């Protein structure tokens, strides 16, 4: 059985904007580790942080975050 998890294209959008993790973190007001863990799907951000990230990257939340299938291991 597959489960839905939160996927993201944060790294791609960040690269498009020419930002490093540290620069994005500074603009959003979190630590670089938070950005790193969101990109690596280790940490699921709150709605507020997701909205802040999308706004900073000049895109919509749906463009950055999406539901992805997680196949059973």
């Amino acid at each position, binding site marked *: 059985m597959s489960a839905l998890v939160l996927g993201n294209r944060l790294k791609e959008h960040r690269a498009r904007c020419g930002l490093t993790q540290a620069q994005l973190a500074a603009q959003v*007001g979190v630590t*670089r580790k938070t950005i790193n863990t969101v990109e690596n799907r280790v940490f699921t951000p709150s709605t507020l942080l997701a909205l802040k990230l999308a706004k900073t990257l000049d895109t919509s939340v749906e463009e950055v975050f999406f539901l992805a299938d997680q196949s059973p291991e």
Partner: protein
Amino acid sequence: MDEISRLQRRRYKVLMLAGISFLLWQGATLGIDLAEAAAWSEPVGMFALQMSLIAGAVAWAGAMLLLLIYQRAVKRAGACSVLQDELFLQNRARATMYGFAGMIAGAALLLAAATFIEFSAVIAIRTLLILGVFIPLIAMARLSHEPDEEAA
């Protein structure tokens, strides 16, 4: 390295020092309690325990001082909200949960051990105190440790 990363690394070091020094200090005290309860008085062993107790207590006091200095540095840098972002809050909750689980496991083991051996309430309380302080400190340090490499 920016100021936030520097403060994160400093926090990691202070938390690790606090956790290890507390374990050394209270662990040595527990060792002395156990030695006294078992009427064990081997001089070299007791001396080592007493030295560990003193070293641990001094290191713990140093860690608390460093924590105060760190907090002042965070305030001066105006980095409170960044350093206590939502990942930090989640990690703190997880570290607290690990400490709680460790204390419950410790209490269960002490309860099981109490059916075979007799020990004082002080020994049991100190054991739980060690678990309740050491585990969250080390877990928090490990969970919030900054990775060295940044993805481009």
